[in-house]
């Protein structure tokens, strides 16, 4: 019997060791990126873990690029697109959740517009935006982000609103509350955690968006943050230090937001197919 117990312990230790090893494969690159951002470029180039930490890389990012402007653009685009998506999307989600408005046809349309590869809309957006003169503007980018954000917010909020028991709303209706009161005083507060998570996820997706940030922004006027890291990569040379620092500036806010909504990330990435 004790032989079996010993084997059991060994198995458990083996599994723990194995899982730590696996964990390291996924976490070491991230730690290296953060740690490397405080090392001189040539240490990074040699993957040389030194202890001569410096803030020069960050200083160079701030001095050589308009990172603060990009950051501001990212924040404006992300928050505005998310706010508009919620403002337009949550009422629609309510309608779909409560009365199945539009049926499966509308549902399919919304989901498939979320799933189309962004590259296929480069051409229409680029040409249309040139026609009306909003290429290379924050406004244009907000429209693009709204395209993907609105579908996401409708789809996700629909599920969270659906989970609010309809009986509570009925009770309020009997008491004479109108639809507006019911939605604003009962449904939204009850669905709030889920809705906030949806908005944070949308903000993350918006923040990460690179394709349009790069293809619709001709000058620095409307560039968003993900562009900044690539500035240090040219065909002549790569400045590893500032590149790592820029990458960290892009990544750190996402890490914070992601840990806030970690319970909802799988749901968000699978459009609610899994929880």
């Amino acid at each position: 019997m004790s032989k079996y117990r010993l084997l059991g312990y060994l198995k458990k230790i083996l599994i723990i060791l194995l899982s730590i090893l696996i964990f390291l494969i996924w976490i070491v690159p991230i730690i290296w990126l953060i740690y490397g951002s405080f090392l001189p470029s040539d240490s990074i180039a040699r993957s040389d873990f030194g202890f001569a930490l410096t803030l020069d890389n960050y200083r160079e990012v701030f001095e050589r690029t308009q990172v603060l402007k990009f950051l501001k653009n990212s924040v404006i685009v992300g928050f505005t697109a998310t706010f508009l998506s919620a403002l337009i999307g949550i009422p629609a989600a309510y309608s779909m959740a409560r009365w199945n408005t539009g049926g499966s046809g509308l549902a399919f349309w919304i989901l498939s517009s979320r799933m189309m590869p962004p590259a296929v809309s480069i051409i229409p957006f680029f040409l249309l935006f040139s026609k009306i003169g909003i290429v290379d503007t924050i406004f244009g980018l907000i429209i693009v982000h709204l395209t993907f954000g609105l579908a996401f917010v409708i789809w996700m909020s629909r599920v969270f609103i659906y989970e609010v028991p309809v009986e509570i709303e009925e009770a309020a209706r009997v008491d004479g509350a109108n639809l507006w009161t019911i939605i604003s005083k009962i449904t939204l507060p009850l669905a709030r955690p889920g809705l906030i998570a949806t908005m944070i996820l949308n903000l993350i997706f918006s923040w990460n968006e690179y394709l349009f940030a790069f293809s619709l922004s001709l000058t620095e006027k409307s560039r968003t943050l993900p562009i900044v890291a690539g500035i240090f990569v040219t065909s002549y040379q790569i400045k590893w230090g500032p590149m790592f620092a820029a990458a960290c500036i892009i990544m750190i806010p996402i890490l914070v937001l992601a840990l806030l909504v970690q319970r909802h990330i799988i749901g968000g990435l699978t459009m609610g197919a899994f929880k």
Partner: protein
Amino acid sequence: MKNKISIFLDKYKLIMPAVIVLLVVTVFPFIYTLNVSLHKVVGRNIRTKWPWVGLKNFIMVMKDKVMWNSLLRTIEFILIVIVAELLIGFLLALIFDQESKLLRFMRTFLIIPMVITPVVVGLMWKAMLKLKGGLVNNVISSIGFTPVPWLTSQPIEIIRNIPVIGQFFVNHLNAKFSFLSLIIIDIWQWTPFVMLILLSSLQSISQEVKEAAEVDGANYWQKIYYVVLPLLKPTIIVIFLLRTIDAVKVFDTVYALFGSAAEQRLLNVHVMNIALRIRNYGQGAALSIIILFCTSMISQWFVKFINKGPINE
């Protein structure tokens, strides 16, 4: 009766703004793309008259060799990464399927690769996969192997040395290190995602089912094969569809690693290149329409599954 009318009004009042915005940002650009694809639209005549060319742009797309190569590469990429992610993800899920505080702690951090900015992932790996002094090659040479030229289009020796078919793989099926790197990066980025979904599905299988199999004398692997895998089938199908949809979208990491080099292009990079570098908008629109048509079939399939609600609550 009055109540019915007011609900009817309410439900459309609430949904109309969203429907209108969606029409403007999705249907209208689609019709516009269709229109562009039937005309000759290039950098020069973008603001003047567009001559009607019928299906010529579509024929040009079909004759475009780089397009076929990118398409093949994209399909190959999708198939390889999904199979690899499902296999590795499943093995990892089995390992992580234990009650332990440490494992739960580690699981929390495994969400990082799937949410961080893809272009950052690309640049991070560009640094790690460098031939000289990259983290990966430092580890490889410290355990006594020769460094690997990850980011070049050199053929993968092991595959080339397979008799008869080896050379074919190198010449026609992208058996090159640059392609392998793309695959490795995608596996790094998305295996935790597949693993976490499979893990929660694993944990939703009731203990009684597993115990019943044990009573019947099944060993661990028999239990996995005959009991667990069949129960995971719907989950695996949906992961397959989701990962396909996402893998079709891949752009940022490829672009961060290789720019728009024709040898490493996936279809999206090719679209971007036709549109913004060559500025042949007509042909790019034709290609966009074709891609959109193919991907909407996949999403239709996915919608059928997802309409039934979450797979495992």
